[in-house]
């Protein structure tokens, strides 16, 4: 009866030794290779710091003008452009300008990195069922594993700072763009692909002239999701020393400052809504050709 009552688990000491062994091995790895890995990521850190400084050094009226211009280029909507100006004026007036710029810098760099890595990865996945079978479960893990868990090895390797924060954001935010690039390419009409083959398109020409353009709406949906998820990581990133709107939120949680938490939280929401609407509008404008469907 004893056998059914208690799970036949590994011996206590064995289990402790196992965990200790893994920890020791990783610590050893981190001691021997930590520097090399840090050097590897150094250019990234420099780029992030430079970009953040650039945003902060830009005079605020110019910054708002640039943001408004980008919103206009993306959405072609007066309403949205004015909305973005008012949002940033309010953010500045409520004393969150500096943190907002830091967050914008982090999100921009993270999104850029995700696209840079994610789209080629998605293309590879679409090309080969085997690669898809390998990458899909990895993406599943990246999306479901609690962020705190993968923060541990990142922290052990790189310590507290901006780069581990950036990596944490990317790990969490990259899956949508990879998945939707893959899906978008796989959903391209087979008849059109056959036509490209029949006219003698090489695999590369097929990718550029048919697959990517036709997958673009899905790729865009992926980029949009990636941006949203990156914004969702701002608070967690602030726990490992990334400056930005997450820092005051963290402080508010620790000290029960309701107003501070709400203000900074809502600033994140405002940026998220802005990014979302503009990128969606832009994605739709790219689909000009599907507007009028003939009956």
């Amino acid at each position, binding site marked *: 009866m004893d056998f059914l009552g208690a799970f036949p688990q590994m011996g206590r000491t064995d289990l402790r030794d196992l965990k200790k062994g893994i920890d020791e091995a990783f610590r050893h790895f981190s001691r021997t290779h930590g520097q090399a890995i840090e050097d590897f990521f150094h250019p990234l850190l420099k780029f992030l710091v430079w970009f953040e400084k650039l945003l902060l050094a830009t005079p605020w009226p110019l910054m708002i003008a640039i943001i408004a211009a980008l919103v206009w280029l993306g959405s072609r909507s007066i309403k949205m452009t004015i909305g973005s100006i008012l949002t940033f004026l309010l953010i500045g007036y409520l004393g969150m300008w500096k943190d907002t710029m830091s967050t914008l810098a982090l999100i921009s760099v993270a999104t850029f990195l995700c696209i840079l890595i994610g789209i080629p990865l998605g293309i590879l996945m679409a090309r080969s069922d085997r690669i898809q079978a390998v990458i899909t479960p990895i993406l599943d893990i990246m999306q479901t594993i609690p962020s705190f868990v993968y923060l541990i090895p990142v922290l052990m390797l790189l310590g507290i700072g901006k780069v581990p924060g950036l990596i944490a954001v990317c790990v969490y935010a990259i899956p949508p763009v990879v998945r939707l690039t893959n899906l978008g390419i796989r959903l391209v009409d087979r*008849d059109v692909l056959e036509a490209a083959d029949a*006219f*003698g398109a090489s695999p590369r020409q097929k990718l550029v002239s048919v697959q990517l353009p036709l997958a673009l709406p899905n790729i865009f949906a992926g980029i949009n999701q990636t941006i949203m998820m990156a914004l969702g990581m701002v608070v967690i990133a602030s726990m490992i020393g990334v400056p930005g709107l997450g820092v005051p939120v963290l402080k508010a949680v620790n000290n029960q400052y309701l107003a501070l938490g709400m203000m900074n939280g809502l600033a994140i929401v405002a940026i998220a809504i802005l990014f979302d609407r503009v990128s969606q509008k832009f994605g739709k404008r790219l689909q000009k050709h599907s*507007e009028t469907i003939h009956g």
Partner: protein
Amino acid sequence: MADNNGIELRGLFKIFGPHGEKYMQAVRDGMTKDELNAKHGHVLGLKDINISIPASKIQVIMGLSGSGKSTLIRHINRLIEPTAGEVIFQGQDICKMNKADLLRFRRHKTAMVFQKFALLPHRTVLGNALYGVELQGMSRKECEERARRWLARVGLDGFEDHYPNQLSGGMQQRVGLARALTNNADILLMDEAFSALDPLIRMDMQKILLDLQEELHKTIVFITHDLDEALRLGDRIAILRDGEVIQQGTGQDIVLHPADDYIADFVKDVNRARVIKVGTIMSPVSGPANGFPTLDAQASLEQAARLLSSRGKDRAIVLGDNGAAEGQITLRRVIDAMVTPVASEKEISRPET
């Protein structure tokens, strides 16, 4: 255009499934499609296809759905790999080409028109028409010039900047045709190109194709399931069933001498008056030739009947290519030939009183 643009299909087999080659011998030894499917789970797509597609003519491949006709046309530009056999064009076996040669062959020697148009939805009409020459690596300016010329030729000038979605089916297929013609390839592959269009527009497109062919003389392979279309367009017709060619010849051959009951059943509703030519049913001249109307040997029975009835004569003289009298034709003979020989309709004559 050169006379060496014919295509030879020799002993072409296609077995669909992961290990097609393994069952080649069994199929050669006479295993049927059903046996192959039941025993080994492989599908016999094409069985020993031998067709000499004539240069600069329209070869129609006809068959019902599932007969393998779309599979067959895709062997000519090797969109589908054969399990065995050869496709010879200008002395080269397309099935043995390496990747680079195959790409070059597809770019410069063939162009294809598809049943579902298969246009690039994100490109304008002009962008679609120049796709083929763009892949050939031609300069943008020349691409556009050529594409505009062919778009105008198929009646689409003024629509260059529209997107395919904004056009009707008939106009979309004109874009498909312009795209293929812009390529200026020797071989034009048309896979049920007009099947998705409604009847009037289909007739329209057939006329465009025949007009174009009169000046272009391309080697055209045209797939259809519609016998009327086959007879209208085809200089030669091959009929496919269950992956096998069951008859090939001119439209007239097939209507006059169906190879089996299946084809006889097919052709029984054909308008014979338009298909059969007087040259085939004429008899030697007997009696005087003067004062009787004359006809070209290539004229159809319908034209002969119209001529005879309008002139009020019951006999006409048939002239050969050189303009000399070759034979004669009587009204009675014309009517006999128009009537389907098979007693397919119910007897309607009454006993004579």
